[in-house]
């Protein structure tokens, strides 16, 4: 089964080498206590790959959406504890959209929560942003603020605001920012051509879809390997029917997730916000697969999988976190369901049968 987001094999090779070297299990454990993975960040920054897919005009590396999606899926595969999706697919895009220059350091973007809101008046912003990945390490947080003359994209310097530290289930920083009416410079405010909110959500949802798909690939490999090595009752546990069935179920879910992510990413690259159907369908599918894959993996590993020393949790804890970030399974199912209802009975089949088309 071939499962690459795109044909850019060289990029995949480069990133795989870089992540294998810098985001191994031991470094991830260290990063969990320190809140940052400096070696991997520096390697990404030095190679310029951190700004892949972001237009050169604002200081990005250029490249297309396929490249970005490759990066994000590989970040999932290696459980890289850095705001890579934030710098590229989500935040890098948002900054570039409004013509804002990229910061000289990590860029991040808040994961929306229902009680968040940012208001801008003149050049003063106030409000709250929750669940900002690595806000404490970031050079800038990019966000959309509502103002009297429409939405504005703003770049916030986290050192200027109150930051309350928090974490997700994988121990990755998810900080909350309280903006008590701070004044922004000109270069920190940009006017987007149109309201970016809908596309922002879609990009966020797509990022988590791809991250989860990548993590599931690793979990599946790890679990199949373990089940063929671990012996009980004189046999590899993979030879017990109950275990073998789980391995098949988890492989099916994981392959399904990879494919769904790939199709959604390509559709999104082709038609942008018009790919809401596909992104929603992929996220709902992948989030559900994530729970199943994590459950199968833990059950097959049994006690050893519950330990900090064994690396399975680097991936399963991220699945549990990512499936809730940028819209849960329920959220995306509802988005999809609403579209289905609006299109009505006659539109349903045509919607389900959309797929990729030749360029």
């Amino acid at each position, binding site marked *: 089964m071939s499962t690459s987001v795109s044909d850019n094999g060289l990029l995949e090779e480069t990133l795989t080498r870089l992540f294998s070297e810098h985001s191994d299990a031991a470094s991830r454990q260290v990063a969990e206590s320190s809140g940052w993975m400096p070696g991997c960040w520096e390697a990404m920054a030095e190679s310029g790959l951190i700004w892949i897919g972001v237009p050169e005009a604002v200081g990005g590396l250029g490249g297309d959406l396929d490249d970005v999606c490759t990066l994000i899926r590989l970040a999932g595969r290696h459980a890289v504890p850095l705001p890579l999706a934030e710098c590229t697919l989500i935040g890098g895009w948002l900054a570039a959209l409004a013509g804002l220059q990229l910061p000289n350091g990590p860029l991040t973007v808040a994961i929306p929560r229902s009680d968040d809101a940012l208001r801008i008046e003149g050049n003063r912003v106030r409000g709250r942003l929750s669940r900002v990945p690595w806000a404490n390490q970031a050079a800038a947080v990019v966000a959309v603020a509502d103002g009297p003359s429409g939405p504005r994209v703003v770049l916030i310097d986290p050192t200027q605001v109150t930051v309350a530290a928090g974490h997700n289930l994988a121990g990755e920083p*998810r900080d909350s920012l309280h903006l008590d009416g701070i004044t922004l410079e000109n270069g920190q405010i940009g006017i987007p051509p149109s309201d970016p909110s809908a596309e922002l959500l879609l990009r966020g949802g797509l990022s988590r879809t791809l991250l989860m798909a990548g993590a599931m690939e690793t979990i599946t490999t790890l679990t199949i390997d373990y089940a063929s090595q671990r012996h009980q*009752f004189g046999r590899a546990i993979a030879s017990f029917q*109950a275990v073998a069935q789980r391995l098949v179920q988890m492989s099916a879910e994981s392959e399904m997730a990879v494919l769904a992510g790939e199709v959604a990413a390509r559709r999104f690259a082709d038609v942008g916000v018009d790919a809401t159907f596909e992104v929603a369908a992929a996220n709902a599918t992948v989030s559900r697969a994530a729970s199943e894959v994590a459950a199968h993996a833990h059950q097959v590993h049994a006690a050893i*999988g519950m330990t900090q020393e064994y690396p399975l949790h680097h991936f399963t804890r991220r699945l549990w976190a990512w499936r809730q970030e940028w819209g849960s399974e329920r959220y995306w199912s509802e988005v999809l369901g609403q579209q289905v209802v609006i299109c009505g009975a006659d539109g349903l089949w045509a919607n389900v049968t959309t797929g990729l088309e030749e360029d």
Partner: protein
Amino acid sequence: MHFVPVVLTPEEKALQSEVRTFLAEELPKGSYRPALGMNAEHSPEFSKKLAARGWLGMVIPPEYGGQGRSAVDRFIVVEELLAAGAPVGAHWIADRQTAPTLLRFGTETQRRRFLPAIAAGECYFSIGMSEPDAGSDLASVHTTATKVDGGWSLSGTKIWTTGAHRSHFFVALCRTSALGVDRHQGLSQLIVDLSSPGIKINPILFLDGTHDFNEVVLEDVFVPDDMVLGELGMGWYQVTSELAYERSGPDRFLSTWQLLKTYLAERSERAIKVAEQLGGLTARFWTIRQLSLSVARALQLGQSPEVEAAIVKDLGTTFEQEVVAVMQSVMEDDPDPGSSSLFESLLAQAILVSPSYTIRGGTTEVLRSVAAHGLMSRK
């Protein structure tokens, strides 16, 4: 297989309300962090308070310092404790597992020595069954006891030993004679003082960074003859009946009860929007509790409802995980483990630890094959 509906007697109802009153006074809301079921805080102080009420070692006969109460009485006390998320960690295994094993198989000396201390909430036990190469396949343990003057010299490595760093003793399953044709022969259980020379207890951190598990390395540890639990060579038989005991209690379906409770406490306004999900979970809680209670009554009546117990464990532990999934979907956002909301932080903890519910005490797969044998042999 049959589950008989249980009617609680007036005395049993009175006990239930007595425990509720005690807990309301002892653990007022907000004064403690509720536990997720039996994986609870180690509090000798709390254990002793329960003992003072006669709520530890309830099924132990009075001549061994217990209360001589029934399995249902114990059920009533234990379900209240677990539902409250009370700090039952210290005495848990001694009360649930070691005491009944000692009663059934222990020598008179052992009963006199340990049972009163367990009932007093002063003596804590761990379970020394699993080894690195012997998990589901427990009969393949390598830990070996060799005969020495006045006792046994025990060597080997036990793993996943919950609470060994806090317990006084553990019951180690080991080989006391060489592996023969029948590998279930030649196994024995030894009661081992965890402070003995030659024992090293190494912590194994859980994936959420907490410390419950240990590796227990035994190097020529001397165990006196009178600490052979029950009969020499009968270890396999004893262990399998011990596992049957620990199966179907309220600890197999209440681990995630606090999620439902704290959600209702903190988000009463939103709750009505997810009434269907909450109703679905409540229906299962209600039903599975009835099943578990029915097994307790059968035990009280001297029956051996082994298949029923296995089925309750399977249903209960699977359900505990379903509660986590449903509450996660109800919450929508991602929970922060360090959140100031009790619901959110308990949900985060539950997401991380709940995979172990269908592993500890024997995995679902192995449990089902035991149950299948039982079902078929009753035909």
